[in-house]
Structure formats: C-alpha cells, structure tokens
C-alpha cells in the first residue's frame, strides 16, 4: 500500500492518476443499478401485497417497509446519476483506460462457486452424518485443493481440528453439535 492510497480510502475503484476509468467499470455499475432497482421493485411489490390488519396498529406493518423501498429507489437514482456522470467523463477525457483490474474474473467466480457448492454440501450432511465425520471430509476436500502438495498434513489437520473442536465445544463448553452416524 502506498502513500497515494490515502486519497481514496477506504477502498475506491477510482482510476490511477493518468488513467481514466475503464469501460467495464461502467458495465459493473450499470449491473448494480439494475439489481438495486429490481430489489427495490420486488420489495415494494411484496410490501403492497401485505395484508393490513383491521385492528391494533393505525399505521400498519407496511409504512416502514414503504419508506425503506423509497430509500432503495433513491439509491438507484443516485447510482444512475453517478453512472451518467462517469459516462460523460469517459467521453470527454483523452486519457487511456486504466489497466484492467477487474474484480470479477472467471477463475475467481468458478472458485467461489465451487467453495459455495462444497460448503452447501457440508451443511447438507452436517446433521445427517454428524459434525466430526462431515467436518473431516469437508476440510480434507478443501485443503486438498488449496494446500495440494501435502496430503498427509491435510488429513492430520482435518482430523485433528474436527476432533479438537468437538472435544472443546461438546465436552468442555457443552455446546450441542450433531453426532450423526457416530455413537458419541
């Protein structure tokens, strides 16, 4: 991290000096704008569909969510304005586009999807198979990908962690964890 990072803390996507914002940054911003408007519309639709009770509350359960959906639409409007200004700035500047620092790339997306899927599977069998067995398999699988060259260390760490955590939480701290197929 350099001194120049001070200017755009905490973590902006502002282009480096001498460069303009790359065009894919606009597509990302446009996607976020559309997502915001979709969420706001969906939330407003669900809010309007809420039944209003005849008694108890003069304002009803809809009033606050309606204000929140109004706020979400306002965010969408502000993002639209920022996007419009960025487009104009890109059109007017003669600077070259900043080198691609795109946050999303296919490899990362596949990695996140893979971990999410593997973790979802872990959670699916968490109660059925039990904490110890599911955790050993889950950890060994993930460690085998991200610490690939050390299968023995991975197996030892996965097993040691699962049993260690089980002892600490179940036996020492009386936290309930599923035992599953194991008798203890």
């Amino acid at each position, binding site marked *: 991290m350099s001194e120049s990072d001070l200017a755009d803390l905490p973590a*902006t996507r502002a282009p480096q000096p001498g460069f303009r914002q790359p065009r894919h940054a606009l597509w990302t911003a446009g996607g976020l704008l559309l997502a915001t408007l979709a969420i706001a519309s969906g939330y407003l639709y*669900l809010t309007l569909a809420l039944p209003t*009770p005849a008694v108890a*509350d003069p304002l009803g359960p809809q009033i606050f969510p309606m204000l*929140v959906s109004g706020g979400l639409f306002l965010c969408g409007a502000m993002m639209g304005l920022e996007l419009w200004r960025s487009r104009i700035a890109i059109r007017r500047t003669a600077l070259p586009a900043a080198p691609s620092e795109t946050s999303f790339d296919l490899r990362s997306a596949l990695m996140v999807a893979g971990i999410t899927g593997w973790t979802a599977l872990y959670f699916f069998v968490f109660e059925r198979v039990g904490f110890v067995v599911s955790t050993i398999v889950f950890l060994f699988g993930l460690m085998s990908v991200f*610490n690939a060259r050390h299968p023995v260390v991975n197996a030892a*760490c996965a097993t040691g962690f699962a049993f260690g955590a089980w002892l600490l939480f179940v036996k020492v701290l009386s936290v*309930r964890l599923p035992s599953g197929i194991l008798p203890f």
Partner: protein
Amino acid sequence: MEAFGHLMHGFAVALQPVNLAYVFVGCLLGTVIGVLPGIGPAAAIALLLPITYGIEPTSALIMLAGIYYGAMYGGSTTSILINTPGESSSVMTALDGYQMARNGRAGAALAISAIASFIAGTVSVVLLSLLAVPLAGVALKFGPAEYFTLMLFAMTAIAALTGPSLSKGLLSMFLGLMFATIGIDLQSGQQRYTFDLPELQDGIGFIVVVVGLFAIAEVFCGLEDHLKGKSEIIRISGRLWLTRDEWRRSVMPIVRGTGIGFFKGVLPGAGATIATILSYSVERMVSREPQRFGTGMIEGVAGPEAANNASTGGAMVPLLTLGIPGSGSTAVLLAAFIMYGLQPGPLLFEKRPDLVWGLIASMYLGNVVLLVLNLPLVGVFVRLLYIPIGLLLPMVISISAIGIFAVNGNLFELYLALGFGVIGYGFRKLAIPVAPLVLSLVLGGMMEQAFRQAMTISGADVGVFVRSPICVVLLAASVIALSIPLVVPLFKRSALIAAARPAQ
C-alpha cells in the same frame, strides 16, 4: 464522585478471580483470532460468541469485551506483518507498519502498537467512566422520536462515511433495514416476507449475517488471493524492542492519537477509521519529514494505533449509555447484549450497575492484560501467521458453522450464512461497505418501533420529528453527515484548480 464509587464497585466485580480469568481468556482468544488474516473484531466476536454460552451474563460480556480489545490489537499485528488489515480502522497502521516490518523493524512496530494501544485504551476508559453517568442521564430524556432521529443519525453517518460512494453506503444501509423487516411484525403480529418459512418468523439472526458477511466472505477473498499468489508473509527480523529515538518520536503521536480517537469514537459513524486517518494526517502535517511517511515512520504507527484503541473506549460511550452502536464491532456487541436479554441504555445503569460498571472496570484490566500478554508473546502470535492459508481458511468455515449451529441448532441458518457470505464477497468486489448493513440490521427493528410509536403518539403527525431540540440537532447532524461526501470532492476540485492556476 458518583462515578468513582460506581467504578470501585465495578472493580470489585471485575477483580473476582473468575471474571479476571475471563478477561485474560477473552484478550488471549481475541488476539489469537484477530491475528488470523482478515478476521476483524466483529467477526472475532461473532465467531467466539458460542464459547460464552452458559456463562453468567456479566462474565460473558466481560469476556466479549476482552475479545473485542484483543481482536483490535490482533488486527494491527496482521496489518504490520502481512499488510492485511482486519478491518478498515487498521488500514492506516499498515501504511508505515508494514514498511517498518520490511525494513526489519517489525518487532518495534508491534511493540509501539501494543504500548500505544495500552495508553490510549486506558485513557479512553477513564474518560468513559467520567462521561457514562452524565450521558446516561441525558439519555433518559429521549422519547421514541428522539431515539428514531438518533438511530437515523447513527445509520446515515456510517453509511456516508464508510464507503467510497454515498449511494453505495446508503444502498448497504437500506438493504440492512430491508433484512431487518423480515419476520413477524411486533406491533401487528403480521408475518412479513417470510414466504411461509417458519425459520424466518423470528427474522434473520444477527450472528448469521455477521458470520456470513465477515468470516465466510473473508474466506472467499482469502482463498482467491491465495490462488492468485497475492498473500505474502514477512518474517520477523532485527531487534524486537524500541530504540531510544523511536521512543522519543512516539510520545506525542500517542497523546494526539488518544485525543482524536476518543472523541471520534464517541460519534456514530466510521469512528475508528476516521480517527486513524485523522491521526495519520495530523502526524504527517506536524512532521519535519512528511515525505518519509509511507516508508516506515514510527509516528505513522504510534498515532493511528493510539487513535484506533482510544476509539474503542469512545465507541462504548454511546453503546452503553444510549444503546446505539457506532460501528460494526459494537453492533455485534449490542447483539450479544440482546442475546443475554439485556438492553444497553440508561436504564441498564440503574437496573444492572454491577454489570455495566463491572464491564467498564474489566476494560481497565483488559488493557493491562493485553500489554502483559502481547509484549512478551509477540513472537508467538506471529507464528500463527505462518499457518498456510490453505489449511487455515477452511477451518474458519467450520468454526463459523459451529458458531451458527450452536445458537439454535438450525440448519437453515447455515445456508443463510453461506448466502450472506456470497453477498459479502460481492460487496467487497463492488466496493460496497458492509458496516452500514450490519448496523441497520441491528437497529432496524428498534428504529421501526420508535418510528411507529412516535407516529402513533402524535396521531400520524410527521412534525413530531422536528418538535424537540434534540430531534432537530440530530436531524441536522444527519444532513451534515450525508452532505460531507458530496461537499468534500467539490472542495478538493476547487483546491486543485487553485493549485493549477499559478502554474499556468
């Protein structure tokens, strides 16, 4: 004098052997977890919450405060050694701390970080003790309208000041409020947005969201960096202690950082982050060698570290006296209070003085424990960083699963946390701040109740929110907070134009 008497009573509680042990264990665990790359105080508290189950509330909260302090210090360690701040408030420490480590002065950077944290933390707890009673008295004058405007101010300030763009900060805030409305409406008993899922009737658990947004998202980011070969570890080298010159240069930055940190910490919003930025800017401004900042100047570590830890004491002022957290980490602490059936605020001072003052007294002890623990054990904690990322981060997912499952034994919450992990990863990639979502999720329910109570009392007259001076001041403060991100760039542009003119 009243505060002194309460504090002495608090020490009697905190000095009980069992509570003393919890302070020690909390600080130790907080530091150990906080040292792990990317795990900040909020995630550390959320992950370690299950450990406090079954413990008496006073002891549990004392331990959680220790975890908070420990994790704050642990985060600084990762900033200095691997240039990975646990949360935004440790970013400034990384600027010169990491360079010091690269210059072979990692030991000195860690030592000054511990000493500055100790001094600033202790001073801020003294100020907290002095301010708590008068502020709690003021808080008793708050009605629903005042509470609504106070919460509005806390949320808008954090939304406006934590992210790169106002719209993204507000988006995060409104999404948090949206998630807060899921579940049974307390006033009418009406189910909202539950899609007939019984698991959603009680709303989305706070721990689920925090663990997902902070811990699981961090695992995704950490493994991504690991895959791309971005995670670099600096080995400690050189003398571990400070030289006489480094001591001399650190004294005033610690003093200035403490003052800045405490007063910024009291204000809701990005208290600690802004405090560290301010402290760093002040040190650079008063330095004779401002151009050397960013190359390993000890002033750039001492000042922000003091500001960071002083702000933790400052942030406890609104949390304890008003029940309003000023940051993501204190929001997690508020959730812990609520989990134990306690509502922080002025009434807690009256109903449970043993708990409040025991907690405050434990913070004094926590600062001492941290210093005693961290100075000799710097070398040991650093070894944690040598655990390969590929082994460490998968374990974080399992710890997260334990933390969530232990609360309700509910598998659905595990899936929800995973979903929030993906959302948190997306937020980081899109530079959307997470703190406003967390804060508004915690405060959302209370905010809606305050809003509806105020409106019901006034006969649906919106004017109720501008009738009391407290409301007017808080609304004005909200407007000012919202306008800061809009106005500051204009000033910057004018300054740039003015600077360019003489050159032409």
